[in-house]
């Protein structure tokens, strides 16, 4: 028997590490990877709450999150390829055309 709160705290740890990696990393692919980490942390909370309430809807929601994450990864990586082709860099500090 594991308290549900432990699963939720684990998800909070993973989410916070994802936020930290998103802010610290300078490589655009690594930033994208940390977004995936945050999505996974949220999925864990969905599954934990679905188990807690004995409801299947949380798992259905995780299924849809996975589908959207797959679509997002495909489009995002295409954008990264396109950025690399025009600017020859993956460093976010140098991709600052829209910066004031």
């Amino acid at each position, binding site marked *: 028997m594991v308290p549900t709160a432990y699963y939720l705290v684990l998800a909070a740890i993973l989410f916070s590490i994802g936020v930290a990696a998103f802010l610290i990393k300078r490589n655009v692919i690594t930033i994208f990877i940390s977004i995936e980490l945050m999505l996974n942390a949220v999925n864990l909370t969905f599954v934990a709450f679905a188990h807690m309430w004995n409801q299947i809807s949380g798992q259905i929601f995780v299924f849809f999150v996975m589908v959207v994450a797959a679509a997002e990864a495909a489009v995002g990586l295409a954008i990264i390829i396109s950025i690399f082709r025009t600017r020859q860099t*993956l460093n976010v500090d140098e991709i600052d055309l829209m910066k004031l």
Partner: protein
Amino acid sequence: MQLALFLIFGALAVAGALNLLLQRHPINSALSLVVVMMSLAVLYWSLGAEFLAAAQVIVYSGAIMVLFVFVIMLLNAGEEEHTNGSRAAYTVGMPGAAAIFCLLSFVFLSERGKLGATEIGGYLNRGLDNISEVSATLFTRQLLPFEVTSVLILVAILGAVAIARKEQ
């Protein structure tokens, strides 16, 4: 037994996430994310979500991470340059991430009595197949969202091809 399972794979997930944060080469970060996703699949299974555990392994650590590794190798991404990041990220971001973690942990741990405890494979114990329950919901009540996601995937494929194509 479930506590041991949770502790082992929870620690593995946190170790993978920390390794993702500390490694400088993108390929190392991507492979640590695979570790995180595989251990999360075990945790899903222990929470009685067998279908999602399988989907996590196949879709996330299979398809999506292959796409990431493929792009990293295609673009020949090397180690990150050692820049001293934006000041805002360190002054606001890190305390912000720590604050998110502290707030969430405080709420979850102070309400741990009401949140209750989990037993291994909750759906199996009730004599219900997890996959049949998921598919019954997905193909009856959630049929329209399910069909819309297939259109979304189609649009994403076309968009990815259109964006990544070489300009003529």
